[in-house]
């Protein structure tokens, strides 16, 4: 996490919050009466077991779902009433499985992140060009500009999608499990990149993560979701306690300090009758 003396853009840290948010599909409510405030300018990780509603919560924050009750507030304003273009300029999302059209090149795909800043009679501006170039630079993919996206590795592809979201230049960036399908080295690589970007640009970032240890290392703020509700919230060291992990994940564990970073590490405790280790 190195501080850049000359950040390319400085979006002021914008606060995103939910009040009494209830979200659901059909008859079932998946997220129930959730009130949460995402700290501005920091990285927040939403963690929870499979089916706990963490991705749904993220989708609700991105206005991909209409709340049953409650509201999502961006900088104090209800996003439900925001003009489409305004919202598209302010909220960025990297979904779990984005779709890259066959044969499309890296620079073409990244450029599409500028869509909310363009009009039907203005397909390009100098600001678009600058934002695309700086997004590709920041994610280290400038040299891949003319490569077809389908021919990249999983890690590179994820950087391309991240560059698209950066080119969009939103106030708040939401990422839905950005590290799935990546091996450990590439997971670390991507999270280091996110942490670095956050340190340099101070953009409010929310991500859903599966891995508690990575969440504990890279997030400033953890939100633990269980059964559609928030079970615990706070700094990683506060949230990642043995009893919280037990109630949220149904996992008995020990928590130790990472000798390298000092962040909490969750060690699942083997069952008492386990004889495999002997």
């Amino acid at each position, binding site marked *: 996490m190195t501080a850049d003396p000359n950040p390319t853009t400085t979006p002021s840290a914008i606060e995103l919050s939910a009040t009494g948010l209830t979200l659901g599909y059909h008859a079932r409510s998946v997220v129930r009466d959730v009130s949460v405030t995402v700290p501005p300018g920091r990285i927040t990780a939403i963690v929870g077991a499979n089916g706990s509603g963490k991705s749904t919560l993220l*989708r609700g924050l*991105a*206005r*991909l779902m209409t709340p049953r009750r409650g509201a999502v507030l961006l900088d104090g304003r209800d996003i439900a009433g*925001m*003009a*489409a*273009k*305004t*919202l*598209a300029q302010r*909220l*960025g*999302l990297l*979904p779990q*499985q*984005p*779709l*890259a*059209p*066959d*044969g*499309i*090149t890296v*620079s*073409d*795909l990244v*450029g*599409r*992140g500028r*869509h*909310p800043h*363009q009009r*039907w*009679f*203005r*397909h*390009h*501006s*100098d600001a678009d060009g600058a934002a695309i170039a700086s997004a590709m630079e920041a994610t280290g993919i400038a040299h891949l*500009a*003319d490569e*077809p996206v389908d021919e990249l590795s999983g890690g590179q592809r994820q950087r391309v999608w991240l560059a*698209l979201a950066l080119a*969009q230049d939103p106030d708040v960036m939401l990422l839905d499990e950005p590290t799935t399908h990546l091996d450990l080295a590439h997971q670390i690589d991507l999270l280091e990149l996110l942490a670095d970007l956050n340190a340099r640009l101070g953009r409010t970032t929310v991500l859903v993560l599966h891995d508690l240890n990575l969440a504990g290392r890279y997030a400033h703020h953890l939100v633990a979701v269980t059964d559609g509700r928030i079970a615990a919230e706070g700094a990683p060291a506060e949230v990642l306690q043995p009893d919280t992990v037990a109630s949220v994940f149904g996992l008995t564990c020990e928590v130790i300090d990472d000798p390298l970073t000092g962040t909490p590490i969750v060690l699942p405790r083997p069952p008492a009758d386990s004889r495999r280790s002997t």
Partner: protein
Amino acid sequence: MTARRDTLLLHPAGRGVAFRVSKRSVVLTAALGLCAGAVAVLSLGLGEFDLRPADTLRVLGGGGTLIEYDVVVRDRLPRAVTGLGVGAAFGLSGAILQRIAANPLVSPDVIGVNAGASFGALLVITVFGGAGAALVLGGLAGALLTAAAIVVLALGHGHGGYRLVLVGIGIAAMLSSAISFLLVRAEYRQVLSAASWLTGSLANRGALHVTIIAVTLAAAVAVLLVFGRHLRVLELGDDVASTLTGGAGRVRPVLITTAVVLAAMATAAAGPIGFVALVAPQITRRLLPGGPARLAPAAATGALLVIAADLAARLLFAPTELPVGAVTGVLGAPVLLYLLARANRIGHTG
């Protein structure tokens, strides 16, 4: 595939106005358009009153005799113009739908628009004993009603892509059984006249057909000029599309409706000429690699396909004339099989 060097920015009114154009796309569209025009000129000279292409051009330029003018401009031109227009409309329709659904197997034929038009026209033939303009109206009504049903059912819950395909396939299946029912109940004479229409034919086209397709294309181009740019994000999947448009539910119905109406009007004017909408965007993608089919070359490809298929339909078994849809079917079916073989998993974009 250097996307950046290929891009040309047009500034017709200062820096505040910028239209992005792909150089390769412009060149390809012009080349395909020229080919389609050449085939049309060739086709205009053919018939009982034969003309060399040079003479045809002279007549088109206003330099012919009264008889030549009558034959070329009055009799044959509507057929050629309808063919070009219908081909362009099918090509556009297919390209839009395939990009929105991110699926190369989507086309108005597959999702039931053509079946709707056929059903409407068949009702006119068998129940009301109509022909000519009544047939066009029947086809139009059938296609538009089907289109409306598809749009309402497919978009009712705010989803695009797969829902559109599934709803369309269901509607197409229902309509084809209804078509079979009407054909079984019809008289022999009616079945014969229906069969020609159901294959798609450009024979005996007149000012009515030209007007239908010209007005439709003009309206579609206007809509696409404003909304076409959204295709660039709609094809990135529902979530990214919604994020970058602030809610894809706003723009997706406009584009789907445009595509479906294009196909409906084209079918009303020339019958359900099969496979053009499916194949044209795929040919375009292969001629212009590096992304999904662009709209202008897809339209030009469609125009060339239909006008060339019509010429072949007239020449292959001369003096007997085949309906143009028979030729596009024979050529298009293998392409469909190829695409099916390539789409080894659902959602693969070919």
